[in-house]
Each structure stands twice: as structure tokens, then as C-alpha cells.
């Protein structure tokens, strides 16, 4: 394992993408940054630009409008990049699977490295998912 990947395990920067989620998963992500769970202990921070990202945390079923943007976002991220499908919608479109504008699920379009199920997932589940992604490196 190279030094860069070893360091990547110590500081995974997460970029959060909402591809049409109902905002519940997004609230749960913020829970991980609060005093009880504090993922900054492990070097995880949320970044504002996709160019800084190491992990793409994608919540929501993919809608028709967001699909081209999602593909561009994935191309814009610097490699190595890990993709995590987040929540029931990110994994299998959840309750929106019959929606007229839903073209998901996510793994039809971009390669996904880990799935974090739940509606919404608990913070413990999120941390366990991130650990699994990092162990794949």
C-alpha cells in the first residue's frame, strides 16, 4: 500500500451529493459531525467542492434532471474516488421507485463501492459504512 493511500485512510474528505432525496438522510449526515459521534476524530470532514473530495456520499433516487449533473460530478472528482450509495433511496430507489421522473437506482450509472441502507441510516451505520469503504483501499 502506497503512502498516499495510507494517508487517505486517515483523512477521507466527504462530498455530499443529493440526487433527489427527501432531506432526511442529509440531516442524519450532519448528526455524524455532532459531539456524540464526532467523525472528525478520524479525519473525516465535509468539503464544499467536489475537487477536494475523496468519498462521494450520494443520497436519493436518481431523477431525470439530476442524472447528467451526477455523471459530470463523478467525472470532475479527482481519482482515487470512492462512491457510497446512501439510504434506502440511494441503494434501491426506496419508496420513490415507481416515480414518473425516477431513472435510478444509482448503480446503473456509476460504480458504487458501498451501500448504506436505512431510511434514514443511523449514524452508527454511516460510520460502519465509511470504515468498510476505507478498508477496500
Amino acid at each position, binding site marked *: 500500500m502506497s503512502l*498516499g493511500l495510507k494517508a487517505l485512510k*486517515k*483523512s477521507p474528505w466527504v462530498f455530499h451529493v443529493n440526487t433527489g432525496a427527501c432531506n432526511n438522510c442529509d440531516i442524519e449526515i450532519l448528526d455524524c459531525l455532532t459531539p456524540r459521534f464526532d467523525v472528525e476524530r478520524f*479525519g473525516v470532514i465535509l468539503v*464544499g467542492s467536489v475537487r477536494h473530495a475523496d468519498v462521494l456520499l450520494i443520497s436519493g433516487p436518481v431523477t431525470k434532471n439530476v442524472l447528467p449533473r451526477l455523471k459530470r460530478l463523478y467525472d470532475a472528482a479527482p*481519482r482515487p474516488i470512492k462512491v457510497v450509495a446512501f439510504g434506502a433511496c440511494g441503494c434501491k430507489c426506496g419508496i420513490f421507485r415507481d416515480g414518473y421522473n425516477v431513472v435510478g437506482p444509482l448503480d446503473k450509472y456509476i460504480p458504487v463501492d458501498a451501500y448504506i441502507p436505512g431510511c434514514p441510516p443511523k449514524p452508527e451505520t454511516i460510520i460502519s459504512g465509511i470504515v468498510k469503504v476505507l478498508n477496500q483501499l
Partner: protein
Amino acid sequence: MQAFTYIVKYLVFPGFVFSAVVGLLTTWVDRKVTARVQYRVGPPWYQPFADMVKLLGKEVVVPVNARSTGFLIMPVVGLAAATLASTIIWLVNLRPEASFVGDSIVTLYVMTIPALALILGASASANPLGALGASREMKLLFAYELPLMISVLTTIMKVGSFSFEKILMYQEYNGVMLGSVSGVIAFIVMIFCAQAKLGFLPFDIPEAETEIAGGTHIEYSGAPLAIVRLNTAIMYVVMPLFIITLLWGGVNFIGWRILTSILKYVAIVVIMVLIKNTNPRVRIDQAVRFFWGPMFALSVIAMILAVLGY
């Protein structure tokens, strides 16, 4: 031989390597104190170093429409300038005879170059949010430079010399500037200016992560981003040290003074982190009004008091 010692001083001690290590440790102190203020645990001490190594190993993306030369070279220019400022300040503190005429003015000029480099780099990135960040950085630069220069003049008026050596000697014999009324006022003004110069809350308007997604940093990835962050880390050493040199008697590594020096440095850093953690981001017009209004008035009052001898 002379040139060789200069190169060693610039690249190793007290220049690039030393300042980078101290700066990265300072960013750790920043993150740890922030975490404790928010009742969290915070990252381990090696976190900034892990971030640097990781960023150096990532892919470097250059946007299609960007002017790639300017985009990639500007962080290096900023880093060179920040290192130069750090080298000058450390050298005059550790060996006052290394001082030269007008080195405080030179340092003040060199310290603006990282901000200018960031503006040029962000403008070359062909990103609308980057351009927005660059324009805000420029306005902020105009805003805080005025009170900063006048509060530097406060010390210079009182001491009657432009050189760091005379300023340090004066404080050695007459007590530190911070013991006088004008010194305290200049200190308050300079702390706020340092806050803006380092891009911290409440003046992180050019970077505003939740608003314009990183602003001036938005298109940087991999090694250039590492350099941009290292730049900020070294400026994090330069700014507190500049304030200590001008107002608080400088730092020194001889005997017990090493302890007081570290305490002074950490005290200023903690004051800045506490301001950062207790204030929301202001708008750019509010920031400009703040610096050209109350801060400008305070710094002029400090200068008048210094001339009158208080």
C-alpha cells in the same frame, strides 16, 4: 558560501521546512481547540500532515477552460512569498542583527502576495464561483490593509524606526508596546486584520464553503490544493509572529524565554480561534464597512495616542 547559507535559511531553518511544520501543528491546535469549544474530541495531532500527504497523492485536475500555467503556478508564488515573510520574521527575532532598514515594510508587502496569488489563481480557474471568491478576496484585501498598515505605523511612530531590530530593542528597554494604551488598541485592530488575512470566520467570505463552495479554492485538487493549504498554514505562523514582534516584545529561544515565547504564540492563536468559533460569517459589504469604519477609527486613535506618548 553566503548564497548557500541564505538558501539553507530559506529552505530549512527558519524558512520552509520549519515554518511548514510549525504552521501545520498550529492548524492542528486550531482544529483541536475548535473541537473542544464545540464539546467534541477533535482530530489527532498528525491530522494536518496526513491531509498533506493524501493531497499530494491525489490526481491533479485542471479544468478544460482554465489558463493552466497561471492556475498551477500561482499557489507556488504564494507559498514562496509566505515562506519569505516567515523567514524574515523568524530571523530578526532569533538574531536581531540580521535586521535591515525597512524590513517591517518589506514584510508587510510580502504578506499581501499570498492573497494576490490566490486571486490570480482563482481568476485563472474559469469557474464563476472562483471568480466570485477572487472578487471578494480583492475587496477584503482593500478593506483590511488600511487599518493593518496604520496600526503597524502606531509602533513605528512610537519607536521612531522602520527596522524590526530597533522595535525589539525599544520594547526590551521601555517595556512592551502592549503595556501602553495605543499598543492595546493597535493589538485589537491587528487581531481582526489577521482574522481577515487568514480567511477565518467572521471574515471567511472569499472561501465561504456553504455559500460559494470553497470560492477561491474551488477548482484546486491534489498537489495544488496541498500547496494552497500549506500557504494558509505558513501565514498562520507569520501573522501571530508579526503581531508579537511589533507589540509584544518578540520571541526568543534562549533559556526560559522559549517558554514565554511559545505561550505568547499559543495565546494569540487561541484568541483567534475563539473569535472564529463565536462569530457567524458577515457579508462582504459589512466586512468592508467594519474595517473602514470602526477599525480605521480605532487605528487612527491608536496612532494619535502613540504620537502623544501614551
